[in-house]
């Protein structure tokens, strides 16, 4: 890949042990890269380090060793605040702050570039499938699916190059999950966004395409491209996942 948006090389992450106990290894020697406008899905059992890996990409986590490059630059050479604007994170449980939807969309550090005009806010709300009338709604009164779409709108307003999605649909019921999947796919096409997602939802993976990375206990166990369709997938566990089986139930390689 000549010009990847995200490139991870030999990333290892361990947390220091609590009170003299040995360090806790979370990720070991993970490498991956993703083309500009591409998609990558991280799958694996709970506790396999998927979310931690995702959070290394916008430097919410600090690797112990290895490098993460975003748009050609080592993330350690970027201002983390600027990096996080360009690689916007959407979390599993949407966090909206006190106030209206407008207050939440406006929420940004002083000096954040971009258009935060009323017209633009409405435009982005429409992009995520919500009426502009929502601007005046109290954020606390929204449904889970609406909240998640507002957090996606909040991310899109900053014109990111990449969206990092941490199980964006797992806290939602199926109809709302489907709406969020649709929202993400549409935004991706319209904006040529690069997407890295942690998900248990095969539906989202099928929409995104790209590559699939299977993590078990912090190590890459399989890493395959989806271009040829599900049938071209060689790894049985990835096939099972795409067929709708929960990856939690899939045993790790002995």
């Amino acid at each position: 890949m000549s010009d990847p948006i995200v490139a991870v090389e030999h990333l290892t992450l361990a947390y220091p042990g609590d009170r003299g106990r040995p360090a806790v290894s979370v990720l070991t020697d993970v490498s991956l890269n993703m083309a500009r406008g591409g998609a990558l899905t991280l799958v694996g059992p709970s506790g396999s380090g998927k979310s931690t890996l995702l959070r290394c990409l916008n430097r919410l986590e600090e690797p112990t060793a290895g490098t993460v490059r975003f748009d050609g630059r080592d993330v350690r050479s970027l201002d983390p605040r600027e990096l996080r604007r360009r690689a916007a994170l959407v979390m599993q449980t949407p966090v909206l702050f006190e106030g209206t939807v407008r207050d939440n969309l406006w929420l940004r550090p002083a000096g954040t570039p971009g258009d935060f005009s009323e017209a633009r806010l409405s435009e982005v709300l429409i992009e995520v499938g919500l009426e502009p009338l929502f601007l005046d709604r109290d954020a606390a009164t929204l449904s889970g699916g609406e909240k998640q779409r507002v957090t996606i709108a909040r991310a899109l307003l900053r014109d990111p190059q990449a969206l990092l999605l941490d199980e964006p649909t797992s806290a939602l019921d199926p109809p709302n999950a489907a709406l969020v999947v649709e929202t993400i796919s549409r935004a991706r096409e319209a904006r040529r966004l690069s997407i890295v997602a942690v998900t248990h939802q095969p539906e989202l993976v099928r929409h995104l395409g790209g590559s699939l990375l299977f993590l078990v206990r912090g190590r890459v166990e399989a890493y395959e491209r989806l271009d040829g369709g599900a049938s071209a997938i060689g790894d049985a566990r990835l096939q099972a996942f795409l067929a709708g089986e929960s990856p939690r139930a899939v045993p790790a390689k002995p």
Partner: protein
Amino acid sequence: MSGASSVIDLSLGQLGLALLLVGVVVLVSLRQGLGLERDLLVGSVRTIVQLYLVGLILAAVFSAARWYLVVLVVAVMTAVATQAAVSRLAKPIPGGHQIAALALTVSTAVTLAYVIGVVVRVRPWYEPQYVIPIAGMILGNAMTSAALAGDRLQGDLRSRAPEVETMLALGFSGREAVQPLVRAALRAAMIPTVNGMMTVGVVQLPGMMTGQILAGSSPLVAIGYQIMVMFMLAAGTAMASLLFVRLAAGRYLTAAHQLRRYLL
């Protein structure tokens, strides 16, 4: 003090009579199966021993009236208060001991210097009769407020981590991201002091004022001191909890604006 001669000196026999009050509590504990007898006994013995020891030390310091002895006593009090402030935390804050020592030392030193040097104008400045009890009051309250603030901050960091990380992911600095939690912790720490200012004298007579009145001071002299004490405690607790919470919040953040979740 003018009326000091009117104080009734309590004899050992009289203290023995006071101990009968604890005896009643022991009986109640036995009857009701509270299981507190042992603690009550140990507590009574500790009360007697600790206070006698402190009394002996203070009597020696008072009669020697040397500035370095006064400073030493205040330093020991600060060390004990530091230990007490951090020992109540659910999970140790990394470097919590140094943070608490710094917060308590600075807040006590600044408040004490102002009260002794500017407000009361004690001569000489190290007059133990003033410095030690006033330092004790500031430290005691500073310790409680720092512990309350630290406890609240820790609890909030744990329960509100997604909020903090959402702020960080939106490009806010670490300091900006924890600011709402710092504010909540400071409010929690300050509430007892502010409530105290609201109800002082009406709900209860504060210990210092009671002591002065018992010692024969006119209630009007006593309230003068009490008013100063309330203001002094407001300043001391605010400074201690602000320093403690700011420094403690910093320990949970990195220079790259990350929340060190593994510490929570």
